[in-house]
């Protein structure tokens, strides 16, 4: 049994002061709502004084998620990202600052990770059958043919004019799948703050999470990080307080061929599924960043991950790999010692 370890992740460590002259805080109740969007289920928990306010704030929050899905979805031909994907090969496409910022941040992580993160990787997933739940191994000639349509370095952003151009003159599919949910969560958290909400927890299908403030009387929102080597057992429990956590895992979406597990998380540099990693969890102040980084560290080798995170302030990671190529458990800047008890599973129940 792996021991539970609690780590407080907050810059606000002060214990609430109950003073004689301080007015009593308003009585708040916990409210909860679900919402299907971006191919997953978002859940919002928040503390508010009454149902009416909670309802209005939740409606705003989910309207914002829907707005961003309409802006970014690669499944929607009318989205701004789809428009750019269609047109930026033929001519520079001027886009709005929000979409431009989204692309800038996406390319930032592509640069920082030397291409381990890439929003143009969609056609590769398609070739491997991941869009239609029919996994297959494409031929090398198929993959070579995709090269001109894949590659973040082919996207040119001109901040002066907010113009997006594809240097290969080939249309590209821009897939927000590894960063869009985090982008949406950051936008919603900004709205919650604007509306005076000080305690809320927002989850995008449990893969990207944000803890705003803390529940009354607590220091943060508890999140359990599972140990994929020991299914059903948590490797760590952390408290999110004004920060986000994202997890990437190969435990839900994959296919097995000849006893080998092919994961839906891709290494854009090889045009093949990432190998050797089982699960990554990254904590960062921005959900956009933690969402992207959970993919980045899934793809990078552990040394490169360590170098990247040690040069990225306020980020922490807990990685579970498959020995011998990867360490069974690797904690980077993670509080506590979650890896001391994490060992490779004695059973090869997860083919790699």
């Amino acid at each position: 049994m792996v021991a539970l370890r609690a780590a407080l992740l907050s810059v606000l460590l002060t214990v609430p002061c109950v003073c004689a002259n301080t007015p009593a805080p308003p009585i708040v109740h916990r409210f909860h709502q679900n919402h299907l969007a971006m191919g997953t289920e978002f859940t919002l928990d928040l503390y508010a004084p009454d149902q009416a306010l909670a309802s209005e704030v939740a409606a705003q929050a989910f309207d914002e998620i829907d707005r961003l899905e309409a802006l970014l979805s690669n499944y929607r031909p009318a989205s701004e990202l789809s428009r750019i994907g269609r047109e930026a090969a033929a001519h520079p496409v001027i886009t709005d600052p929000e979409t431009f910022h989204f692309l800038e941040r996406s390319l930032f992580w592509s640069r920082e990770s030397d291409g381990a993160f890439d929003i143009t990787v969609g056609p590769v997933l398609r070739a491997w059958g991941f869009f239609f739940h029919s996994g297959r191994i494409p031929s090398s000639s198929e993959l070579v043919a995709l090269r001109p349509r894949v590659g973040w370095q082919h996207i040119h952003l001109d901040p002066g004019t907010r113009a997006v151009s594809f240097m290969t003159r080939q249309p590209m599919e821009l897939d927000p799948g590894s960063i869009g949910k985090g982008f949406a969560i950051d936008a919603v958290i900004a709205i919650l703050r604007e509306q005076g909400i000080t305690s809320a927890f927002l989850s995008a299908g449990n893969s990207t999470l944000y803890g705003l403030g803390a529940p009354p009387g607590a220091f943060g929102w508890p999140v359990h990080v599972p140990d994929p080597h020991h299914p059903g057992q948590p490797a760590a429990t952390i408290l999110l307080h004004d920060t986000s956590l994202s997890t990437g895992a190969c435990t839900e979406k994959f296919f097995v061929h000849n006893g080998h597990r092919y994961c839906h998380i891709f290494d854009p540099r090889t045009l093949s599924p990432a190998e050797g990693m089982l699960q990554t969890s990254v904590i960062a102040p921005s959900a956009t960043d933690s969402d992207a980084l959970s993919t980045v560290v899934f793809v990078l080798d552990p040394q490169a991950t360590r170098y990247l995170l040690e040069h990225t302030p306020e980020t922490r990671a807990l990685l579970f790999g498959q020995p011998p190529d990867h360490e069974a458990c690797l904690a980077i800047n993670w509080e506590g010692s979650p890896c001391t008890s994490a060992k490779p599973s004695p059973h090869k129940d997860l083919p790699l």
Partner: protein
Amino acid sequence: MIARRLFLQGLSATAITAGLAPEISAQEAASQAETEAARQIAPSADSSPLRVGIIGPGSRGKELVRNLLRVPGVRIVAAADVYPPRFDQLNQVCGYTVPSHTDYRALLDRKDLDAIVVATPLGLHASHVIPALQSGRHVYGEKTMAYTVDQARDIAAAAKVSNRIYQVGHQYRYSPWIRAAIARVKAGEIGNVTHILGYWNRNNDWRRPVPTADPSGHLERLINWRLYHEWSLGLIAELGSHHMDIANWIFGSAPTTALASGSICCYHDGRETDDNVQVVLSYPAGRRFIFTSMTDNAKQGDQLWLYGTKGSLNVTLEDATFFYEPRQIVKAPTNGKGEEKGVTTSASYRPEGEMPYRGPGKPLTIANPEDATTIAIRAFVHCVRTNTQPIANADVGLGSALGVIHANQALREKKEVAIPLIST
């Protein structure tokens, strides 16, 4: 005065034929109109500077600004609003500080504006759009065009007199899939369209949070203006006006009568406008448009159903799908020799015979299904730059406004009201 039948076609045959030689047929004129519409809708490489001001950068206003900033050459140079927090929000959308005014007249006094977007509460449209046109600026005005018929006519007159572009925010007119679907409907694909049903259902109280203490209720009425009669015509205007515009477009006419009902059945929170409405608009030849909206169950969402004698068309915010009625008996072809060829017997099962008999429908496929608002805004800039009459012009705006305003009158008076033929 133009005939009701030809009224409200947007870039209509009448508009195109005005000033042309009389020998040009209505069909040719319609074809020219379609060509001009395609020109407005297409992306343009023109990046000549266009300086835009906005009156009312609220939630819809900010969305219009996002779309404006996707058009090469456009810069937002000024904003006016009576609610100061909007300015910071607008600056975030733009990525730079937009000069702000708490009085729209100060914005109109600026010398550095080419066009103005008006996205204020409905009851204020006329008092912002008309001075903006009179100041010599082109105007993109949100729907519904105006709160009263007289105000709508005054807006149309101001656009005419000032010789400025006025485009109303009926962006569905620009949606590629809606245009393509309606072209097929007009070509007879589903026969004679006799009924159109429009749904717009939601499951929320339609409120926006009032962020600070508001003992006087001033902020409540400002932020939740849609819930109060002073500036709002309720769900019929805010949601139904889009569907009424499409009904006018398909039927090629303004409605002739309106029936409406509504109530507050769920949100007893001091609001004045109904939280559910039902409208029946009549059109020439007995055709009907039926609109229903409720705010406590979102099952149908936002969609239109067009029912014709040969089939149906379902239009949503994302797609369009055709369905076909069971075929009726037709004269059988013969081989000329009077001989029966006979049939080959087999099992009766056919996959296409599975319920429902009408099949899953045939989705419309088009090459560039862009967002309707993105196109509408780009088309507005095109019209300003080329001094071209927009697709969603004052006629289009007035047509929808007639339905909205008279449906509200019918709702208030609890009786069917006649809609007079009024032109711009």
